[in-house]
């Protein structure tokens, strides 16, 4: 089910909301761009050249800037069928499992994108039509997914501290 609990670590302050607001602005741009493109194409027979490429790159920003907010708001869909059966300790252990798996997978993902961004920068990789450099968008993936991993690390530490204080 869709969680709605705010699990924002204290250090992140309102950074996740600011980033999500930027993501929202990128989405607003996307909406206006699609609308303008459709009108120009059908009403004036003047399509925006390379519109798809612009939208594809803006899409990367929309998603990656909102990843930290999605994580702090615990918006990732879970199946909570065994919630009651697991009990409080069971739920905490499964949370630990999710965080550990998440950190490992995201670590590989972020590392691969650091290498990809550096390569794209070095070899000047660009989009086909508008020659938009790709490395900033690979960098956005490093940023978004890196923050996702960092939030998971901090949440894991918060869980450990909670257990430690309870003892």
């Amino acid at each position, binding site marked *: 089910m869709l969680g709605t609990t705010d699990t924002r670590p204290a250090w992140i302050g309102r950074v996740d909301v600011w980033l999500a607001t930027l993501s929202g602005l990128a989405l607003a741009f996307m909406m206006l761009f699609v609308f303008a493109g459709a009108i120009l194409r059908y009403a004036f027979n003047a399509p925006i050249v390379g519109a798809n490429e612009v939208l594809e790159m803006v899409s990367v920003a929309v998603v990656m800037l909102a990843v930290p907010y999605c994580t702090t708001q615990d918006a990732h869909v*879970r199946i909570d069928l065994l919630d009651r059966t697991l009990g409080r300790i069971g739920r905490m252990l499964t949370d630990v499992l999710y965080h550990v798996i998440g950190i490992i997978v995201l670590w*590989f993902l972020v590392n691969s994108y650091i290498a990809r961004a550096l390569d794209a920068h070095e070899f000047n990789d660009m989009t086909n039509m508008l020659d938009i450099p790709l490395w900033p968008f690979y960098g956005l*993936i490093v940023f978004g997914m890196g923050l996702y991993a960092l939030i998971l690390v901090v949440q894991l530490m918060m869980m450990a501290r909670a257990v430690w204080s309870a003892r």
Partner: protein
Amino acid sequence: MTETTIGLLGIGGMFVLLALRVPVAMALLAAGFFGTWALNGQRSAVAVLSSETFSAVSSYSLIVIPLFILMGNISSAAGFSRGLYQLAYAWVGRFRGGLASASILGCAAFSAVSGSSVATAVTIGRVAIPEMKRFGYRDSLSTGAVAAGGTLGYLIPPSTGFVLYSILTEQSLGRLFMAGILPGILLTALFIAAIALITYLDPTAGPKGAPVAMRERFARLFNAAPLIAVIVISIGGIYAGVFTPVEAAGVGAFVVLVFALIGRKLTLSSLHEVFLDTVKTSTMLYIIIIGAGIFSPFLAFTQIPQGLSDSLAQLGLGPLGTLIIILMAYIVLGMFMDALSMLVITIPIVYPVILSLGYDPIWFGVIAVIVIEMGMITPPVGINVFVVKAISPGVPMSTIFRGVLPFWVAMLVVLILLIAFPQIALLIPNSMFD
């Protein structure tokens, strides 16, 4: 270990992770990533992880997701959905069970701007359930109608279900949207027929509402006109071939935003909330799509879908018998899994089997979405029932589940009709594209 063994371990591991409350996206990511690692090594696993992530977040066709969610969220925040319910109430509320029918019609109309069943049930339920309570409707009918009506959000275009199905199967989203229209109308009609039958057998379940004067009815039609215009522009635009689904989503979101701003229906703060909620939901969906994008190639490496297809063929049940087994499996899964998870997990496994049986992939998309919708109101995990319970906390869960039963049967009837007459789903897309 053979490829099949690794595949089965991967699928089993994913289900264990899901049962252990690991988010669906991460369970798919982990099973796909580590499974590919076990099969082809770390380098291949990292390559798949890396390429699938960028191809998902930079996909042009996926842009429909945030734009359609934005359109639904603006409509909801601006209160346009209330106008739809009030319009339906004005025209059918005076009949026996009319308020419940108005809820269904309100849900169907709101579904045409929102791709989410939960959003549809919440939006219409908040207006409709208190109204039905005021007129003495039986709780089972009022809550059941809203919970079932909400599922229309997943079938009537723009539907998140079709967007995901289109991505997972590489089928045309425009065709899928069009294929959902007639089954959506048919299901709406059958829901209303179910209400008529319930109130015929027990008139106290749904008394007549207050009659509304003809002038007032047209006034409400005028009030709901902005949203009706958005529906005509976006969905009509796709059908007429004027817009692609992405353009329809962008134009629809823009037009509904303009109407909301002109009508001073949104403040800066509520607009901020709308955008935050949209990017949050969209990102959640994108990460699931990334997970599915990594899990699908892993399944393909293991040859499990092919093996499953061969095994089912060996049973000698024929295409229809095999289809019935698959649908029964979906109904059982629907008891425990939510719609989104079911779709992204099962389609990569089932879709090759369906193709090998010779079924039309667009038609199966509609079938899959309806059978998954049934899961939304099936105990013990029926997301729409939980949503309705949150709106009306005084009503026991068992009453709501009892209330949705007639609507569940209506869905089953639609499913049978679609299997018997696939043209119901294929008529519009075929007339449009062929």
